[in-house]
């Protein structure tokens, strides 16, 4: 036999408490699910620079919240021409092609030049010294194969909700990428 609805829409104390308990339970579950989902999203996506959009503006060196930027120059060795005159390493008008400080383009001497065989040299980045200024990236892209490019190093990046560099990036080169594929690497010179 069906229970009769309360007259004039009124509820009994028991019904009121039961409904209240259901509401609280649903609300709690919703909050927990929301918090879980938010945490999951935060961990699954990280910031990265699209090298094809990077304008080498210098903001990566100056805008990061870290004292030394989380952005570093990286080198695609498969793309590199191993040039004797690397325009990412040397000033446009070097006195001579040696590693003397006055010939080097990098403000922190973060690029190491190693002889391979005549006339090839290998260029590697010392990330402890690199400040992510992109000066070498511009030199390499302007005259060379573009094997030097910037990437956010995730062992340093705080993964801020709002990246301070992304906010000022004129090329809109910053984007969120899945944590499973945290780098956008160059594989060809184009």
């Amino acid at each position, binding site marked *: 036999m069906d229970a009769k609805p309360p007259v004039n829409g009124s509820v009994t104390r028991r019904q009121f408490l039961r409904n209240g308990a259901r509401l609280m339970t649903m609300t709690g579950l919703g909050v927990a699910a929301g918090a879980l989902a938010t945490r999951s999203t935060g961990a699954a996506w990280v910031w990265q620079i699209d090298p094809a*959009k990077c304008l080498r503006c*210098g903001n990566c060196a100056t805008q990061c919240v870290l004292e030394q930027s989380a952005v570093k120059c990286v080198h695609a060795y498969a793309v590199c021409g191993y040039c004797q005159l690397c325009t990412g390493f040397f000033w*446009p*008008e070097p006195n001579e092609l040696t590693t003397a400080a006055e010939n080097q383009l990098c403000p922190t001497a973060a690029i190491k030049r190693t002889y391979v065989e005549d006339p090839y040299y290998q260029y590697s980045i010392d990330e402890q010294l690199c400040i992510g200024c992109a000066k070498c990236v511009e*030199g390499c892209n302007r*005259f060379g194969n573009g094997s030097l490019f910037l990437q956010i190093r995730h062992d340093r990046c705080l993964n801020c909700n709002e990246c301070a560099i992304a906010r000022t990036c004129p090329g809109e080169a910053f984007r969120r990428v899945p944590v499973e594929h945290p780098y956008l690497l160059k594989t060809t010179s*184009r």
Partner: protein
Amino acid sequence: MKPEFELFDRREFFGVVAKTAAVIGLAGGAEAGAEGQGTANPFAYDISRFQKTDPKLIAYEEVTRWPIPHKDARRLAIGPDDQLYVCAGNYINCLSRTGQRGLELALAGPACCVAVARDGAIFAGLRDHIEVFDSKGGRVARWESPDPKTWFTGLAAGGNDVFAADARKLVVLRYDRTGKIAGRIGRKDAARNVPGFIVPSPFLDVIIHRDGLLRVNNPGRHRVEAYTFDGDLEGAWGKPTAAIEGFCGCCNPIGLTALADGRIVTCEKGIPRVKIYSASGEFESVVAGSESFPENAHACTDLNDCIHGGIDAAVDSDGRIYILDIVTSDVRVMKRKG
């Protein structure tokens, strides 16, 4: 006479308020504008001083400019009758001294280089072979390269020999006029003191100089090298620097030609410019500086790398220099000033 401390009337009051608001607004706008422009990049890679040429060094002026019939130009050459042969796309086009279109040769693939012999025979370099035409455009022969990876980027035709620069295999092939390979020039060979060509981008060129030697650009070493037809290295010159007297970037020069008196004309990319050196390599003057090729210069400042820019040059019997801009697809005719 107004009292000393008279209160503003309504009109005066609104006027003062409006002026004050305008001044504040202008100041605020200027500040906001300054913020919007941002500060200059303290790490800028500045090559602006190399992109303007000292006018005193420029010895030539542009007489005229012709568009070429097809896109994707690569090289040009001068024939015995001073006609200009331009390879662009799948075609080789002949242009008269006044820019009138003449013979057009359709090829099976993109034309990479061209040379014309004294007898009028036309040699068209495709990526992996050479096609030979008579002076009227009739196909005479097809010369295969010895290597399937060949990438011909320069040709020079002499009386009995044709020299083909293979940018991928780093060698200049010497063909006889029957298409048989008679020698290989420029391969790394310590015993002959030949250092080998370094060609990071596909621009290896060869010319036959009036002194009887070949001149070949070695872009990765930033120099021009002189070889005998048998492959002996006789000398080299060139300095790696963006300054006007040297060759800029990773790999220059990319093209060569010679004036009748033996001086060498060089072409560069990156900072696109055409310059003249003595036969022994002393810098002499500028034919056209970087400011003459703004679109070409921009090809290397874009997000892409610098393999899309480039220029080539040829010289006619009057000493006029023809410059092919492969970005704007036109030929500039340059005449010595004065």
